[in-house]
């Protein structure tokens, strides 16, 4: 059996798949859709396929979708050529039958033990990259998971956080138990947050430098290149995949790169190195009649850097901030509740 060298934990709805859960109608529509009707974000499947090209890379998908959707979601991932190692869904029917209505919507009490259980079962401590979205509490759950792995959260603190996140007693006991079983290593190097709701990126600064909000998967690929996880050729393949959709063109990809540079999330040096290494893989582009020649692509990117006129990027947030998770989950709960109320009043 191949040794796991890196784990990639991916959310599904609003991270990989375009999903609408804003109303009951959306939920029913999503449940009845065929695999071929489900849409992934441009570049999402290309990125996961690229990640899986390296031996030892493990892809774990954790979704809040109900277990009843496993067949259709698995079929969708198969259609996209995604070779995953784990695929966990939420057993909401069980919650419903047991009358645990809080558990239907709760995020932290479901995702955190799921992540910890997977880590414990791994019996190893490889580095991890996590990807979620801005629709729910992914940034909080992932940071909490990372801090637990790093040994920064005591059992007492974890219990208080879980209570604040409206977890049931048995969920608290299980999660605290799992947290005590993990081998403590600071191994979560990167947390990517897909900005499905186009939330302001500054909202995520409090989570520290490892959390990077992204507008699209080209940005994800660039960050993972900077992290040494993807090669320039693989970044190019993600870009080509996106350029083959109607949503992206050369200028929007170049703008995405400029956005990361402005936010200080990649340096101009890294961008230059990427361009240089990508030029060696330019045969991938030059043979494609639907794409501009590589030189034109490189020029567009260089232009975006020049257009910044040497303006300094934003300062990076703290590397290791101490997060007040109790307040964070409280605030997230309130936000979600207000959003629901807003939708109800809007509907009435």
């Amino acid at each position, binding site marked *: 059996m191949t040794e796991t060298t890196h784990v990639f934990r991916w959310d599904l709805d609003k991270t990989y798949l375009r999903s609408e859960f804003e109303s009951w109608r959306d939920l029913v529509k999503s449940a009845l859709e065929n695999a071929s009707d489900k849409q992934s974000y441009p570049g999402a499947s290309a990125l996961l396929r690229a990640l899986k090209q390296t031996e030892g890379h493990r892809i774990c998908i954790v979704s809040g979708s109900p277990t009843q959707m496993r067949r259709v979601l698995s079929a969708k991932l198969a259609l996209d050529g995604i070779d995953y190692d784990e695929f966990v869904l939420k057993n909401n029917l069980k919650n419903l039958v047991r009358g645990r209505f809080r558990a239907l919507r709760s995020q932290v009490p479901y995702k955190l033990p799921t992540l910890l259980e997977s880590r414990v079962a791994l019996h190893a401590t490889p580095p991890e990259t996590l990807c979620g979205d801005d629709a729910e509490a992914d940034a909080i759950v992932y940071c909490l998971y990372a801090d637990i792995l790093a040994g920064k959260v005591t059992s007492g603190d974890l219990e208080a956080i879980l209570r604040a996140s409206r977890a049931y007693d048995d969920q608290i006991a299980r999660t605290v138990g799992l947290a005590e079983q993990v081998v403590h290593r600071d191994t979560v190097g990167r947390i990517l947050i897909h900005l499905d709701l186009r939330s302001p990126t500054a909202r995520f*600064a409090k989570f520290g430098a490892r959390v990077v909000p992204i507008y699209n998967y080209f940005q994800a690929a660039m960050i993972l290149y900077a992290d040494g996880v993807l090669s320039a050729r693989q970044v190019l393949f993600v870009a080509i995949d996106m350029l083959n959709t109607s949503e992206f063109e050369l200028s929007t990809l170049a*703008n995405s790169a400029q*956005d990361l540079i402005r*936010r200080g999330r990649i340096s101009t040096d890294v961008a230059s190195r990427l361009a240089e290494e990508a030029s060696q893989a330019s045969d991938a582009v030059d043979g494609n009649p639907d794409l501009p020649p590589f030189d034109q692509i490189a020029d567009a990117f260089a232009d975006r850097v020049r*257009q910044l006129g040497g*303006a*300094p990027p934003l300062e990076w947030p703290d590397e290791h901030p101490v997060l007040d998770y109790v307040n964070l989950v409280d605030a997230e709960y309130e936000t979600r509740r207000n959003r629901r109320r807003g939708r109800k009043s809007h509907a009435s």
Partner: protein
Amino acid sequence: MQRIVVDAMGGDDAPEQVVKGAAEASLTLSDSELILVGDAAAIGKILPTVGHDGSRVRVHHAGAVVHMDEKPSEALAAKPDASIVVAADLVARGEGDALVSAGNTGASVLACARRWKLMAGVRRAALASVYPTELRRGERNDPFSLILDVGATIDATAQDLVTFALMGAAYARIISRNQRPRVALLSNGSEAGKGPREVVAAHDMLIKNTELNFIGNIEGLDIPRGVADVVVCSGYVGNVAIKMLEGVSETVLRLARYAYKERLLWRAALAMLSSGIERLKQITDWEQYGGAPLLGFDNVFIKAHGRSGSRAVANAIRVTSKALRSDLCARINKNLAEFHARIDTAQ
């Protein structure tokens, strides 16, 4: 994809309100790329605080700003790297399709005039303004009429006035979705022979050589009534008229504030009218319109009000996008070509 260049440093509350407005527009205009021209470091600090689409917004650095109170020609001479100059240059070089600015009006007009080409048959560009009126118009039930020229140039010949009428009508057809806008000349009487020589001559040309819905001359008091959808005048007259209209509105507001403070009975009366006043404010809210065009150039320029907040800027960008989608310049060109063909035939 449309490329809309935005002068991020122009306006009383720039760059903050301009950048926020552009950010808001990026979320709704899926076929547009917004190029924010200005201090890249300042813009880079504002963008992360607002929701936007990072793949459709780009920043283009410009090192200087023309402030609202600066003399246009002197400022442009002293600041060749001013944001409005760089922005107009980008459009002139074909790196952008249209320009939006809430900055110094004179400097904006001058920057465009020095870099952009006038359309064939246009001798002078015309700056338009919108004014809320009693009567409404078009499919959108638009409460705003268009007045041009309000100060791009001082004098206008009869042919200039006819050109302004053709351009203004084309714009109203697209933006207000008003298929037969009522076009009028601003004069000192409604009779055809009233007014200076060029207005009388323009009256004759508009009747004989255009197919516009020309309703003749109107007087100043007809502007707020909304008798015409497009009011045509020279830049000198238009500027005086629009400033006077703005002055009257401000005076009415000041008087209302005075009344509110002065007597309890007046205060009570104003309180009773408050919902009606609020409704009136909503109807005549210029922020919903966003901006008005500078017409006559080969490119689209929308001038937003200097006091524009983010909502007004976002709406000015939407108006620009609509003008590009509807190919405003090509439509104006077509109307002008038809007019000149008629003149040639008549001669």
